[in-house]
């Protein structure tokens, strides 16, 4: 959008304490009235130097730190890390561990997308769906707590295995939850996704073309929202995702150009349904086994380096580990999905209105814990 400035430019400082910057992001808005010429993100308010921390802890001790990157999807964060270390050490896990990991990761994906959808509704001004989403998310967290004892930061996936096995009857509870949950998605669609006001607010703003998305390294639901059918679970499978029957949700642009905020939002809603499908199939594949069977006594990977990425709810999460053969990682670099998405923000939000800036930011579904690390 071309912006013709007729008046003075006013700098509006949005954040780091602002209700809708999803944490402590700071946006420097150059505004003329309601129009925003530039929205310059400033990050780092939640910086803990995760990468320096982990150079001083041994490999299993890193897992609690990875939990704290994306605290809305901690199960996926640690899954990526343990898979990377397992790849480096060449550990094979048994079928039960594999299935449980998939079930947990997908439940966590649902929980994370529920936060995304709910907070997005809140950004647009509708508070009710937010609490409905949280109600369903609580059920998932209850399941997690029953299994591993924590609700948010699990430390459940261990290198070579899992902390605990399921409790008896857990599978039934998961299926019960899925049965209950699937109609709730339609409920959410009725109150929010299909609402005319919501569609008008989101379907024509924040257009991200596939070219821009790929150039800025945008991944995950945000990339798929632009119509690019790319999912690490399908295109570079891990954990045997290739054998599971599910669709890669892409933005179709029903209400406007492809790549709008609505598309990105809708990809998440569709993914939630796909996750339900995956969980159903994986629960059927569960076989008995010992979940701590292949946990090594000492995690001491050989010297070398490895890069691995997984599809976490906010995009591709990559871990690049350089090992010098010691007990602690020599260097661990995280490719954080939100970080790359955020770098495209300035490009996408150029020339929108103040309310749109909030809408675009919400549709990116960022978690500052992961951007700043």
């Amino acid at each position: 959008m071309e912006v013709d400035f007729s008046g003075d430019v006013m700098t509006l400082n949005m954040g780091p304490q602002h209700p809708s910057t999803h944490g402590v992001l700071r946006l420097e808005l150059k505004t003329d009235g309601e129009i925003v010429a530039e929205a310059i993100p400033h990050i780092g308010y939640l910086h803990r130097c995760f990468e320096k921390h982990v150079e001083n802890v041994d490999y299993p001790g890193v897992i609690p730190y990875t939990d704290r990157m994306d605290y809305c999807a901690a199960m996926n964060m640690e899954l990526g890390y343990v898979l990377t270390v397992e790849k480096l050490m060449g550990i094979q896990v048994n079928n039960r561990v594999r299935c449980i990991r998939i079930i947990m990761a997908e439940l966590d994906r649902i929980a994370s997308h529920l936060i995304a959808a709910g907070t997005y509704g809140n950004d647009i001004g509708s508070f009710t769906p937010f609490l409905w989403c949280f109600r369903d998310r609580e059920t998932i967290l209850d399941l997690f707590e029953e299994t591993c004892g924590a609700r948010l930061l699990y430390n459940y996936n261990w290198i070579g295995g899992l902390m605990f096995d399921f409790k008896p009857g857990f599978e039934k509870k998961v299926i019960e939850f899925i049965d209950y949950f699937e109609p709730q998605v339609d409920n959410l669609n009725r109150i929010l996704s299909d609402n005319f006001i919501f569609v008008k607010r989101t379907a024509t703003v924040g257009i991200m073309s596939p070219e821009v998305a790929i150039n800025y390294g945008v991944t995950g639901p945000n990339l798929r929202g632009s119509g690019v059918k790319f999912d690490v679970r399908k295109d570079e499978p891990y954990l045997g995702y290739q054998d599971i029957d599910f669709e890669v949700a892409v933005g179709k642009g029903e209400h406007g150009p492809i790549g709008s905020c609505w598309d990105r939002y809708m990809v998440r809603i569709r993914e939630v349904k796909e996750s339900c499908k995956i969980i159903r199939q994986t629960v059927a594949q569960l076989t008995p086994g010992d979940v701590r069977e292949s946990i090594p006594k000492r995690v001491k990977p050989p010297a070398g380096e490895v890069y691995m990425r997984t599809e976490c709810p906010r995009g591709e999460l990559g871990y690049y580990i350089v090992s010098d053969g010691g007990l602690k990682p020599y260097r661990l670099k995280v490719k954080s999905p939100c970080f790359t998405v955020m770098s495209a923000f300035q490009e996408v939000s150029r020339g929108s209105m103040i309310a749109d800036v909030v809408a675009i930011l919400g549709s990116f579904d960022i978690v500052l814990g992961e951007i700043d690390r």
Partner: protein
Amino acid sequence: MLTYFKNLGLGVVTVLNSMRVAWRHLFTPSVTLQYPTVKWKMPERSRMRLFNKIEDCIGCSACARACPTKCITVQSEKRGKDEPEIYASDGTVIKLRTVVYDIDMTLCCYCALCTFPCPTKCLVMTGEYEYAVYDKKDHNYHFAKDKPMTVKAPKEQSTEKA
């Protein structure tokens, strides 16, 4: 002109739709708990406050090594040969006298990595979650009961946090 009326109609219909969903929820039972009077039953694996049953502790400091945030401080000394032999409740011989066993709960990240290496399973994460205090120092738990017999300069703890 047609799209104008179509949009108008769509707007009214979807708004009514939203209202219908909201109306239905007006009569669904609430899912929240009335917290201080009604309490959530914690699952048995809940990971809340750390507790060390010091009678069973053999002072091996495996927990302190496993802790990623270094919130556990253990200092132990050899028990004298002339002292009577004591055992933990699972029969392990206690060869070390634990003189310092401090857990700083403000540093704890509730990962439970410390509880797994414990040989006598005396360090557990309990399901207790209501332990807010007014002073941060009150979260520093001192479990050790024994006084050091041999005088030794306190080992310098690496306080430098990564």
